[in-house]
């Protein structure tokens, strides 16, 4: 029996919690003692209700003014509070106290860079679990996140140096235990990527294990397709997205049957937006069911929905809202099965844009090729396989 602490520090929304909880349940089934440390108290109830003792993760203060286009992984972290030496020192200290209290044999980091560094200082084994974005490319300097654009290695190195200097200063007398390269701060005994290599924002790459995307742990409403002859368009959208209204308006005019899942929407608004051909659900839906027979999947390119669309061979229209989604969307676009609407550029005519993906055969063909690669992926076993790898590291 091992003691395993799962830490989540960064990234909004429920995605991180949904990834880690089923893995933790598997670990517990295997007889291990699992505790959690989450950044957002609003999501603690999701793991507490499953019986996991859940602490709050030490928090860094975000920069007041965030740089919307960080260059490399160091820059991302500098944006997320790593410019503040005192804050990092305090957080490292608090992780150490939590380690003293819980005595974990292994730390599982779900986008938890401070916890990874604290575990390195405490000589605790480390595993990362992610969809790829939170595991940087281990090179010196860490590369530009937008690998397709030219970048100045001196600027990248300066960012790495700044991050490393902050961490070293924050670590105080224990700085001697730290590596002399920024990327090495985030090395681990295993990097478990719960995704497909095609949608790893930095993939395909060496040094990580692709265990495939997990099942949707929360499920959702069963919404069956009703019209057998019309194309089926499924959209998973965030009501807070800037272009939500424009996208909804375009979806409503498509010559298709449309199902929209929009968690966070009020029930009244969902009803008001629904039409005879478009059902709007103010919550999650059963993705297995809705992907069956879908002709187009519209999403923000969060990790979960595109993986489902890939395995089901459904072409995609992607509306990324943030950098990690944009990077993943670029990767999906490279498969030929998707189009991207760049949030920093003027919005397309959404109706024409959707219609294009629905009617151009090349999208269907590319999606079919993805299904051939991944159609047999067993989503339900991904958590078990991930848990088994964590247990191996814990007991090594």
């Amino acid at each position, binding site marked *: 029996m091992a003691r395993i602490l799962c830490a989540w520090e960064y990234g909004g929304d429920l995605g991180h919690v949904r990834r880690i909880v089923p893995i933790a349940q598997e670990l517990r089934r295997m007889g291990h003692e699992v505790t959690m440390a989450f950044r957002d108290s609003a999501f603690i109830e999701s793991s507490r209700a499953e019986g996991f003792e859940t*602490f*709050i*993760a030490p928090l860094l*203060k975000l920069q007041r003014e965030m740089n919307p286009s960080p260059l490399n992984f160091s820059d991302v972290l500098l944006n997320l509070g790593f410019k503040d030496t005192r804050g990092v020192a305090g957080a490292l200290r608090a992780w150490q106290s939590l380690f003293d209290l819980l005595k974990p044999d292994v730390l599982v980091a779900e986008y938890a860079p401070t916890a990874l560094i604290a575990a390195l200082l405490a000589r605790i084994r480390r595993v990362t679990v992610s969809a790829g974005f939170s595991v940087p490319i281990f090179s010196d300097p860490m590369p530009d996140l937008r690998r397709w654009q030219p970048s100045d290695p001196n600027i990248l190195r300066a960012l790495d140096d700044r991050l490393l200097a902050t961490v070293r200063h924050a670590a105080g007398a224990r700085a001697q235990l730290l590596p002399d390269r920024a990327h090495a701060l985030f090395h681990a005994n295993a990097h478990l990527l719960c995704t497909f290599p095609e949608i790893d924002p930095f993939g395909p790459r060496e040094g990580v294990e692709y265990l495939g995307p997990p099942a949707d742990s929360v499920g959702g409403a069963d919404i069956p397709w009703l019209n057998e002859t019309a194309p089926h368009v499924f959209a998973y959208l965030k009501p807070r997205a800037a272009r939500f209204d424009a996208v909804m308006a375009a979806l409503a005019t498509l010559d298709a049957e449309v199902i929209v899942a929009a968690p966070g929407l009020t029930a009244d608004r969902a009803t008001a937006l629904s039409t005879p051909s478009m059902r709007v659900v103010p919550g999650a839906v059963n993705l297995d069911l809705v992907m069956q027979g879908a002709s187009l999947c519209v999403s923000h390119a969060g990790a979960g929905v595109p993986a489902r669309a890939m395995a089901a061979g459904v072409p995609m229209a992607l509306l990324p809202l943030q950098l990690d989604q944009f990077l993943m969307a670029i990767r999906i676009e490279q498969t030929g099965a998707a189009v991207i609407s760049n949030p920093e550029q003027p919005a397309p005519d959404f109706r024409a844009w959707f219609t294009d993906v629905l009617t151009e055969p090349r999208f269907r063909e590319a999606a079919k090729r993805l299904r051939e690669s991944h159609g047999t992926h067993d989503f339900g076993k991904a958590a078990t396989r991930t848990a088994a790898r964590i247990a191996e590291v814990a007991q090594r």
Partner: protein
Amino acid sequence: MARIAFAWEMGGELGHAMACNSLALAMRARGHHVAFIFRELHSLTHLPVIAAHDVFQAPVSISEGEGQPLPSSLADILLGCGYDRPQHLAGMLAAWFAIFDRWKPDLVVTDFSPTALLAARVMGLRRVTFSNGFSVPPRLTPLPAFRFDQGVNPEKLAQSEARALATVNGALARFGVAPLRALAQQLETDEDFLATFPELDSYPNRPAAGYWGPRVSFDAGADVKWPAAGGRRIAVYVKQSMRHIDTLIDALAASPHRVAAFIPDLDPARAAKLRSPARIVSERAIKLGPLLRDCDLLVSHGGNICPGALMSGVPQLVFPTQYEQFLTAHRIATLGAGAWVGPEAPVADVVAALDRLANDPSFKRAAQAYAARYPGYSPAEQQRRILNRLDEIIAKPARPSALPSAK
């Protein structure tokens, strides 16, 4: 010896950490084991002796205050700090339960930590408040308003209380714990160390209460002496982020007065502008005790230091940055012992206030008259009495936990 957890959950000033630290050090000296469970870990590195304590992140809402109207009561503040939904509060409570369950405090000392108080109540832990009173409203139903400069609708107060209470009870139900009848119950303690005096209390309508006097420690920090030059002696303890920082620095630099200033992380250009043989700009916190004996004016934001220095008869110029500080500033102005300048005030007000406070002797007379009402107060005596009372509380028998899993 006992295990003492200090909880600081809301309110954003270093003063919370400093005050807890002073008391914690004294408790350690008595052989107790200390944990800090703080909302801001950044502050810890200002405290040099922290290495001896355990340190944890306090459960907070990361969406704190977003989309909330101006608060008028503690219930309003709670609604903006995770008490909007039972699920959210249940998450914060679960995290407090987890830390208390594992660390096993014998006593929880809370500073603006209503959720820690609720968790401690449920777990049957001994608990006290240690604050200037703003976070400890009189235990009435509904919890009374602290806002006094705008009308507060009594119905609105009752609504906020009802909403926050419904969230509390919704969260408690998730743990199988019986509901509360009123938010006031959440705030029940074994003792309230109201670290102020009635004249400066955020709630002037508080029913009979014990007051312990301001919580300050003026005997730590860099040794500084007033420069030998002429002019008044002005101590300055503000943050660089204050709206009027440049006006204040310019006004002080143009004045004939002596200055001893600590402005954390002050940028070099501003420091160079202020610094002179007559004006000390310290890189570290200053040991204020010796300076206050012949100080003519303290410039601050109205945190603990302000009522603390008032006990030495020092007039006050206050630049409040939030409502709690504004309440202190307003009460000091009412006493005639100081004045305040709000963030929206024109630049001329800063210069005029500084001039008036430096030259009008009535402020010093009022400050000294106030201090003379409490001849028995000193920070050391206040702390000694608090420590003795805490030892009594620790010696009381523990109560059972109401958590079903603990039965």
